[in-house]
């Protein structure tokens, strides 16, 4: 359909009417379907599907005829709303609102909104020793792992990216393979060795395990970062009399801070979200958050509001970091994706 044909003024009128009708169909069908889901009154599901599809088509055609791409944009924003709902609805209703329910509310059927909102689940949860310890251990271990890993990875990555030394190629390949290594492959021998050293189920052992998990990823990301820094900057600084270390600190680090922080965030998220290493290195005395949550998921004795509260607590640090750092994270996601 071409838009710039000078026809009569009836065309914008028809287009506008189509767009309005389409919007009305979509909104009306959505409202009816929501009422149906809350208090069923016998509306067949296919009516909603047909009305929504017809509404979208009318809206698209009508608006596109009025202004180029307008329909595409409006329809895209509606579809985007659908995607956001797909993400937010399970999390918002089950984890956030679910955590505010009482145990008794479970008996009166699933509730969209908590009938009597309360934070009692939080108090109950903090009285479960392995959960409280798991939260504390996870905060400690993941922060330590993120900091240690970033500092060590920084030096190693800089050496591999910038300095020429014998064995550089082999070191590079080593980092790459380590970065690809699946967690379970790393753990099989690590556990066998840890058993001999008495490191299983200790906090230092847990921290070492998490560092082993995160260091290859961080080193790999930072090699890419330092490779991308213009060497001339550094050379100029060195000609002006800066030593290698000064050049690293004053010239290279300031321009790479966003990537370094991103790498540290990746390390924290990887460590915080990890179940495998935490589970395998835990026998009874050093719970971490993820295995503690799995313990709460007992098929018979689980109490869902508590579980949701635990999930909410576990999500807050990673969600906060992700949303604060989103601009940098999105660029690095491709690199960090293998883990």
């Amino acid at each position, binding site marked *: 359909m071409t838009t710039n044909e000078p026809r009569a003024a009836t065309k914008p009128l028809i287009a506008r009417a189509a767009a309005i009708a389409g919007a009305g169909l979509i909104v009306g069908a959505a409202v009816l379907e929501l009422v149906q889901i809350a208090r069923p009154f016998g509306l067949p599901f296919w009516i909603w599907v047909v009305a929504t599809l017809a509404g979208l088509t009318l809206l698209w055609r009508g608006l596109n005829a009025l202004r180029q791409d307008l329909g595409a944009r409006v329809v895209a924003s509606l579809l985007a709303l659908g995607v956001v709902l797909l993400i937010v609805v399970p999390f918002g209703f089950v984890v956030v609102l679910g955590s505010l329910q009482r145990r008794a509310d479970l008996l009166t059927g*699933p509730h969209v909104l908590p009938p009597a909102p309360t934070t009692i689940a939080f108090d109950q949860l903090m009285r479960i020793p392995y959960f409280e310890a798991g939260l504390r251990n996870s905060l400690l271990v993941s922060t330590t792992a993120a900091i240690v890993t970033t500092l060590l990875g920084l030096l190693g990555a800089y050496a591999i990216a910038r300095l020429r030394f014998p064995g550089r190629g082999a070191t590079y390949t080593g980092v790459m393979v380590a970065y690809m290594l699946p967690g*379970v492959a790393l753990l099989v021998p690590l556990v066998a060795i840890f058993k001999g050293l008495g490191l299983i189920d200790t906090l230092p052992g847990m921290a070492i395990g998490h560092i082993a998990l995160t260091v290859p990823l961080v080193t790999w990301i930072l090699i890419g970062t330092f490779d991308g820094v213009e060497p001339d900057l550094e050379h100029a600084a060195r000609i002006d009399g800066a030593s290698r270390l000064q050049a690293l600190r004053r010239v290279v680090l300031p321009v790479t801070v966003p990537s370094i922080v991103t790498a540290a965030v990746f390390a924290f998220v990887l460590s915080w979200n990890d179940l495998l290493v935490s589970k395998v290195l835990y026998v009874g005395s050093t719970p971490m958050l993820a295995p503690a949550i799995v313990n709460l998921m007992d098929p018979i004795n689980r109490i869902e509001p508590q579980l949701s509260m635990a999930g909410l607590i*576990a999500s807050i640090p990673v969600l906060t970091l992700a949303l604060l750092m989103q601009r940098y994270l*999105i660029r690095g996601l491709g690199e960090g994706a293998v883990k």
Partner: protein
Amino acid sequence: MTAETITVSERGNRLSGLSIRRENQAYAALFLIPTAALFIGLIGYPVLYSLLLTVTGRSTVPGRLGPFVGLDNWLRITADPIFMQAAGQTLMYVIPSAVLGVVIGLAVALVLNEHFPGRSLARAALLIPWALPPVVVAAMFQWFLDSRRGLLGEWLVNAGLVDQPPLFLSGVPGTLYMLTAIHIWKTFSLIALIFLVALQYLPEETINAARIDGAARWQRFRHVVLPFLRPTLIAAVIIQVLITIQLFDLIFALTGGGPGRYSTYNLYFYTFKTTFEQTDFGYGAVLAYIVTAFVVVLALLLTRGRARGLLS
């Protein structure tokens, strides 16, 4: 190399008058010692150690290798029905995740690449499934999909789609498909974000030229956008396959490998069970090598392709 010019001009600023090359090596050593120690101690040594594990039997003393058994552990694969089942089920996870995950991710990226108010908010929402701890996703869907207490079952009944809330997590092979669906929910947004980053580099002029030539939206997608995204598409498929081969948390937290005895096992989970629950480190190491082989080959394809500019 620029190193030559520096040697001439900056004499005196180097570590105690060493030559440029020696100085580089000294710094390399200094910077690398901690990382190298970590890599060798935590990754290199363990990997070699696990090679030893594959040729030894069950150990009676913790931390000691068991008796030498030759290639027995490696030969066990050929006669292990659970291995075959887990391998087949790994494919049952990987294929739908790769196809649907990437198609949905691409579709979402194309939608969010349009200009409309609230777009950045929608993009931020995409980070939520990626950042959420997998165990939280597991716990969330455990309740959401519960047949008595879950919201989804009730909504489906009220919408008139089913007569009673379905048992989402108890059939064979239905449970495996549910786990796959949850896994796709957790991963499609990462794929979408990867496509969105690539779409930023789509040359505006090409699209406008196609538009002026009268190409409709679908034709522009088919003949301009899709060829442009081809390298990203291949990279996204490899990434999704890599992530799905290593799917563990959802299986462990939601089904523990059941229902039945092994119906939701994949190779990764089987490796975990064999090694850490049956403490059969020898056979576990063999399984770990097999999983690793697949992962490393795929990851090499990805990094090599990226290094040559073939994949983005």
